[in-house]
């Protein structure tokens, strides 16, 4: 059994590997600590010992071992910090190449998507907005997709489980994050921050498809949109 859901982003692997790395450190430290805790219960049980040793632990020589253990722990902490730093930077900073971009707005209680219109720019009058429960955001495969995350009413959190990305959306701010999908499919976008009574049913989809199919979808989207606008 795999403990993580399938990963479909370029950087998700980094997070999964980080888990195993930390598990090695934390697991080792946990079992050593457990031994330090439990062994004396057997060895120093009152039936085996005549009198306890009078050790205050205040002398340098007595505290030495504890200090060494603290240093080892601090060292492994910093190893983890260095190991994770690249992953953090990759996810939180934007790549140089932007292939596609969207505005994603969290609202009570669905995600609303804005595609750039035929002019290819966001924030112009020909933008296409899809704002409905269960709606899908289509993105092309293997492209750097930028998401400008906003919130309309309360704090929401953009969570695409299979990519490992989570980012709060805060009213009054635009936060840009990116995903490069490595596999076609339909994935949940959930909201990870409690946002009211409909929090439990706040769910939309990301549909990842080949560039061809994506272009086709966008064309039909523009046609639909201009037909609606023409009326």
């Amino acid at each position, binding site marked *: 059994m795999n403990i993580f859901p399938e990963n479909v982003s370029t950087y998700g692997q980094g997070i999964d590997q980080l888990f195993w790395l930390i598990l090695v450190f934390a697991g080792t430290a946990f079992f050593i600590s457990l031994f330090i805790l439990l062994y004396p219960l057997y060895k120093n049980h009152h039936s085996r010992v005549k009198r306890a040793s009078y050790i205050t632990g205040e002398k340098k020589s007595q505290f030495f071992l504890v200090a060494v253990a603290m240093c080892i722990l601090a060292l492994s902490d910093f190893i983890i910090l260095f190991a994770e730093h690249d992953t953090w930077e990759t996810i939180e900073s934007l790549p140089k190449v932007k292939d596609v971009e969207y505005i994603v707005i969290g609202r009570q209680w669905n995600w609303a998507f804005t595609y750039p219109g035929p002019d290819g720019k966001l924030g112009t009058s020909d933008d296409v907005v899809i704002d409905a429960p269960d709606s899908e955001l289509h993105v092309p495969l293997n492209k750097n997709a930028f998401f400008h995350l906003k919130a309309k009413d309360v704090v929401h959190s953009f969570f695409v489980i299979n990519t490992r990305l989570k980012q709060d959306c805060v009213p009054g701010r635009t936060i840009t994050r990116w995903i490069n999908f490595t596999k076609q499919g339909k994935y949940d976008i959930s909201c990870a921050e409690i946002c009211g*009574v409909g929090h439990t049913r706040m769910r939309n989809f990301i549909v990842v498809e080949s560039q061809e199919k994506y272009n086709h979808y966008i064309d039909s989207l523009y046609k639909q949109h201009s037909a609606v606008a023409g009326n």
Partner: protein
Amino acid sequence: MSNTVHSQSFLRKYIFSTDHKTIGAQYTITGLVMAALGGFLAYVFRYNLAFPGDAIPLFGELTASQYNTFITCHGMIMVFWVGMPILVAGLGNFLIPIMIGTDDMAFPKLNMMSYWIFLFSAIVLVISFFVPGGAFGGGWTLYPPLSANGYLNPNPSFFKALFYGNSLMIISVALEFTSLLMGGINFIVTTINRRAPGMTPWRIPLAVWMINIATVIFMFSVGPLIAGAFMLLFDIVLGSGFFDPSRGGDPILFQHLFWFFGHPEVYVLLLPALGVLGEIFPVFARKPLFAYKIIVYLTIVAAILSVVVWAHHQFIAGIDPRMATFFSVATILISIPFSGIFLAFMATLWGGKIRIELPMIWALGFIGLFLVGGFTGLFLGSNAFDIYAHDTYFIVAHFHYTLFPSIFFGFFAAFYYWFPKFTGKELNKTLGYIHFWGTFIFFNFVFFPLFFNGLGGQHRRIFNYGMFDSINIEPYITFEKIATISAICLISIQIVFIFNFIMSWMSGKKAARNPWQANTLEWLAGSPPPHGNFDNIPTVYRGPYEYSAPETDADYLPQNVQP
């Protein structure tokens, strides 16, 4: 000073009492009643998670809105109306005066007022369940704008808005902090001014040190949150816009104010429990507490660091990624003094002569569970992994593995240790062991499976996972059921504790003055200690942890014995 036998009316002795032990008992019992309420809420929403849609025994059907209310109030109650009264106010009141060898608190009337304001705050919270719309259901972190914009009604009038669940919750929290500030001032002034002759700072038992350091952390960090709470209240009832971006406010500001207090609060709850361990380990290992002074220094270092780690709750809230690195480093740094403290406790056992009695087994269980909580903190302190694990069941399991041992194992260790002193009766041991093993085993079965649910991507505070086909799958469904059934067992096993508590108190065997053969001053007083505690204020000649000292053949040497 003391030693006057008062004849007091029932009302003065048990209800409007200024005696620190009675006030401690009032805090503890109120805390336990609130724990029963918090536990019941947990039972209801856990039942719903395992069997969504089913009518819940003893409750009925749960709506999504009630679910949100219940998870919110469960968190609020367990931290502020259980952890704080039991561990800080309860233990502080019971232990500080008697352990430093005085007859009562420095300000007994302020102490009484502190309790009554606390009780009032609890009543306000309970009342909020019955106002239109019910109690607040936007998460115990109270994040605006969800908590600020009328929640139910976009344009509430002043008086109406005051009686909404969110207003009442903020008011009750503010009242509770007011009460604990009074209690805190009392603790610190009493410890500084009212110590028995000879009770120098390095002869103060660790429990008293820890409660005082926790109080200082609390008093230092609570100001910004009270300010934040009032700004939020103004946003609700006066229509101000502190946290409303459309009027120049910023919701993230509240998150900073909240977590500037919220994270140190975790240590406020942990430190008194560590103080309890510091009393229990030496007594049952018959050996001095390892590195007593260094523990105190490490705690002070941790206390200072505790106010610069808060933003690790906000890694994904939209703060600057470079700032996150600072808080990641600070978070890792704070683990170092705590690792030292825990290692020192464990080192106390090495070379000891260990008796496993009820208080000891709770203390050992505390450390065992807390290790899981501490080491899973490493995953979350690493900000990259936190992107994924944040707001999932992984974090829920993690903080229950830290807070449950602190609040409940810490309290039960203290309870089984000091019960003979403060009631004069012995507890039933068999029931005590049933209570321990039941609590220990079922606790693990509740929360260990949830780590996997979190890693599988289940985000928290979801009423029904039916909408999410990718995470509403086996084994997570089974894990939810295991967790729920174990939670029901965990709550039910507490009946053994209540039964033991009441039966032993009423008709237990009479306890000796110093049944554990401990050194600290409280064991010198009668069991139960009378009003005024000591026949004569004792004089202190040595530190609290002189066990198996070379100067005597006995394996303990009380603080008050003349050399």
